[in-house]
């Protein structure tokens, strides 16, 4: 047993102790999954940042810089674009979710379109999209533990330990456990990444500038986008598509409802971009690793961060970095499990009528009861087991599964915007759009089609576009065609009573 592995174990223990603080209050499904809707700016910030900076950011961000160079820059851009949108998007979502007393994305769609069928479709889409995301966290965890313990603990055992710990703390504490651990995680990640991002270039090359000089000399063209492939039009379309999908992930969407009021989101729209700059330091680590520990290819580029730390520093630093990385897997992993379990529970056992009206026509919530929570808790290990199964199954298909997940949640965006703008989109239109969009995503993913293959004679500006553009286009087309055929819906009328009460 080495020092670095000891640090890892200690951190896991602290994380589990932290979650015990949430146990007492987690008595209803509402307390468990959205903290009784009482979180202020700081907690909402931690939760949003906590779910957003995952093991993909930590290992994948440095891996992309290491393996791909300039195309990795898209990761900073799309997050920031999503934060700009969030200033208008999140308060609008929150306000409706709050008025309707919904806990999850499917419930939101059910209420908005007055269509339980649409809610079920959204739930199924969400669960399918979340599984590969959870698999990614577990696999990242396996990589970290086996690298840090220098092979003493196998990836298999690491994945099991990680999955079981996450299940325990999600079942006991719910979202409060995640928020506290998000705080611990963010402090560790901030120190680890900023520290490494500055220290490694200075240690090996005498500065950031000299490091880039070396890369420019060794790999010309690596730090600009290529003419074809991941070119400028790929960059623009990918930034746009992923920014639209950013808040459509069910676990992110669900955690919005933990906010006390919508002001938290607007303040975060100004704070989160700065936080996003953590990625810059992640890139510096990846670029340094390219010169110090060259030769990693394929999926192994994700090891670059841990490899350069191991090659440069002693076991204390490796343990600390590993602990930070472990939390980047556990915290988002717990949010994903909770979200998937809440959605599954609601799928089997729909919520009762969400509110009645008092004399002033204000919405009065019908609070969910304990049996809902019990069901959701029982479903957490089920979700975890499915994810562990796929973690041991898949190999090279993991990245394509993740991209598929992202493309899938992005398909929910048009019908979400239709709700927020108060358009009279019908449930049939929304269902048609989502179904056509998801079918296109699945077909494109399975066939591994790209526009360059489908349209060989077209210019690169078109064929390099992210294929998600096709799915989103067909989605919109189906939505408007079906809506025109069946006529407008009634969803706006639903929101009017609560809205008029406020003015």
């Amino acid at each position: 047993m080495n020092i670095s592995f000891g640090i890892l174990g200690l951190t896991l223990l602290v994380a589990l102790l932290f979650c015990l603080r949430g146990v007492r209050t987690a008595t209803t499904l509402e307390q468990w999954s959205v903290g009784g809707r009482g979180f202020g700016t700081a907690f909402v910030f931690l939760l949003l940042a906590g779910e957003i900076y995952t093991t993909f950011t930590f290992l994948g961000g440095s891996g992309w810089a290491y393996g791909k160079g300039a195309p990795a820059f898209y990761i900073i851009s799309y997050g920031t674009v999503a934060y700009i949108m969030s200033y208008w998007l999140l308060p609008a979502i929150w306000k409706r979710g709050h008025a309707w007393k919904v806990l999850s994305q499917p419930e939101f769609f059910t209420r908005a379109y007055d269509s339980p069928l649409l809610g079920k479709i959204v739930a199924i889409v969400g669960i399918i999209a979340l599984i590969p995301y959870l698999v990614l966290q577990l696999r990242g965890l396996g990589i970290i533990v086996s690298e840090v313990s220098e092979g003493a603990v196998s990836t298999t055992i690491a994945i099991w330990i990680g999955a079981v710990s996450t299940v325990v703390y999600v079942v006991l504490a719910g979202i409060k456990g995640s928020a506290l651990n998000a705080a611990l995680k963010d402090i560790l990640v901030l120190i680890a990444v900023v520290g490494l991002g500055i220290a490694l270039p200075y240690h090996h090359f005498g500065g950031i500038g000299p490091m880039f000089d070396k890369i420019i000399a060794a790999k010309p063209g690596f730090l600009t986008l290529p003419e074809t492939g991941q070119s400028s039009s790929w960059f623009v379309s990918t930034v746009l598509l992923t920014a639209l999908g950013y808040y459509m992930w069910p676990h992110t969407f669900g955690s919005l409802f933990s906010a006390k009021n919508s002001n938290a989101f607007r303040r975060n729209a100004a704070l989160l971009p700065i936080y996003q700059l953590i990625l810059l330091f992640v890139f510096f680590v990846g670029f340094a690793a390219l010169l110090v520990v060259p030769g990693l290819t394929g999926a192994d580029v994700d090891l670059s961060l841990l490899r350069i730390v191991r090659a440069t520093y002693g076991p204390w630093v490796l343990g600390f970095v590993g602990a930070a990385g472990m939390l980047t897997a556990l915290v988002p992993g717990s949010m994903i499990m909770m979200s998937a379990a809440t959605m599954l529970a609601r799928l089997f056992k729909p919520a009762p009528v969400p509110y009645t009206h008092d004399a002033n026509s204000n919405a009065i919530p019908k609070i969910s009861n304990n049996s809902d929570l019990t069901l959701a808790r029982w479903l957490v290990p089920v979700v975890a087991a499915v994810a562990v199964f796929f973690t041991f199954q898949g190999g090279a298909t993991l990245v394509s599964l993740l991209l598929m997940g992202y493309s899938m949640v992005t398909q929910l965006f048009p019908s979400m915007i239709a709700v927020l703008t108060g358009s009279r989109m019908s449930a049939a239109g929304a269902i048609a759009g989502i179904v056509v969009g998801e079918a296109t995503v699945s077909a494109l993913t399975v066939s591994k089609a790209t526009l360059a293959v489908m349209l060989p004679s077209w210019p690169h500006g078109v064929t390099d576009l992210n294929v998600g553009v096709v799915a989103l286009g067909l989605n919109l087309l189906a939505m408007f065609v079906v809506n025109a055929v069946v006529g407008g819906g009634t969803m706006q009328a639903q929101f009017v009573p609560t809205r008029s009460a406020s003015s």
Partner: protein
Amino acid sequence: MSSYSGDATPIFRRHHWIALVPAIALVFSPYFANRIEPRIAGMPFMLGWIVFWVIMTAVLMGIILRIDRQQNANDSDE
């Protein structure tokens, strides 16, 4: 009182158009900045460009928030 009283509706106001500037700068960054020189703080130009606009996003969104708060305080009759 409604369930979300005291919370100003984020209707789109004229000064909100400021937010389009960093959004366009970031989405279309390759068309403005897909090159290495001039270097910014040692970074290739494209990375420096993106970092600059991320910082500007925080500044501009902070300004938008501040103006909204002042206007809400003025408009508020609750």
